């Protein structure tokens, strides 16, 4: 006999519902099945109208983030067996507007990303003939952790500051800015400072730390934000105390 587990899935159909409702499905419980496999089973065999996002099934694309039993998770990396005997609650990511069922609108995040200029900025662009910008392994280590982000937005779903104020730039965007600020090839730190040091940037963060706790790639956005606060504060102090030339 096959073990079975109940999945409680949030449904929201904007054309007919004013509020989401919960639908229950009993599915087979297989040792190697992730929550995403469970959803795929529902979609293929039980109810083809269920909507959700997914792509790579291996924790790289960052599109299958949902709330599993109240925690923001990548559903492809969260296994049903860990929740046995169930039931397992699957809801859309919190803090984002729900478009349908488990699909959220990510436009806000997409508009925030380019604001921090996440690319290498050079004060003077070298012509390609000069060659690449060399970097030592130790210099790469400086920002490597922050470059692991897959934009899955679990950190936004976990952040109460973002929940309360959607203007907040948020964990992933600031960590990404820090990834370029700490890159030895980059010279754009002062350009990013304007966006980051606004009231809705780093200073809105109160270091709840949940962004780092839920991050599937151990990026530690909370650490990145606090480190950046320190840098920004020191820069302000220098600007206040030192004459212009010495900065």
């Amino acid at each position, binding site marked *: 006999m096959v073990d079975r587990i109940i999945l409680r899935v949030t449904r929201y159909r904007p054309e007919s519902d004013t509020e989401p409702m919960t639908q229950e499905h009993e599915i087979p419980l297989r040792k190697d099945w992730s929550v995403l496999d469970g959803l795929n089973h529902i979609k293929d065999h039980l109810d083809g109208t269920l909507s959700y996002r997914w792509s790579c099934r291996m924790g790289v694309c960052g599109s299958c983030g949902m709330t599993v039993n109240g925690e923001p998770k990548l559903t492809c990396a969260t296994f049903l067996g860990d929740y046995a005997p169930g039931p397992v609650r699957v809801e859309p990511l919190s803090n984002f507007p729900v478009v349908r069922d488990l699909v959220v609108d990510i436009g806000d995040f997409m508009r925030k990303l380019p604001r921090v200029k996440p690319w290498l900025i050079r004060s003077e662009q070298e012509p390609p003939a000069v060659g690449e910008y060399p970097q030592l392994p130790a210099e790469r280590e400086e920002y490597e952790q922050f470059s692991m982000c897959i934009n899955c937005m679990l950190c936004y779903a976990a952040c109460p500051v973002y929940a309360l104020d959607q203007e907040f730039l948020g964990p992933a965007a600031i960590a990404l800015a820090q990834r370029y600020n700490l890159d030895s090839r980059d010279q754009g730190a002062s350009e990013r400072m304007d966006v980051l*040091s606004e009231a809705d940037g780093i200073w809105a963060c*109160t270091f709840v730390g949940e962004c780092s706790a839920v991050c599937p790639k151990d990026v530690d956005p909370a650490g990145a934000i606090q480190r950046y606060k320190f840098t920004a504060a020191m820069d302000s*102090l220098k600007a206040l105390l030192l004459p212009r030339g010495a900065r």
Partner: protein
Amino acid sequence: MEPFLWLLFSAGGVLSALLIPALLFLFGLAFPLGWVSPPDHAHLSAVLSHPVTRVALLGLCVLALFHWAHRFRYALYDGLQLKHLERAITLFCYGGALTGSAVAGYFLLAVP
């Protein structure tokens, strides 16, 4: 302004974490409950009359108050969702810290 307030908050957080547990344990619990016999007046008075002690305590008081002001302000913004009262809250928190610092300065430096 925010960077400086944050620096004060952080410095206050470090000092409070390092010093307040021991001080509060002694004067709030250990002496009143008789676990440790309290120092006599002459000894405490001598310790307090040393300028280094007074400056250190003044630093602790001022930074601890600004630590409170900053954290409490955000606790009211987020915990009670009072961001729309930003002005009044800022005035209350940092005004309180400034007033408290002045009182601390009076007690610690003006009193012999």
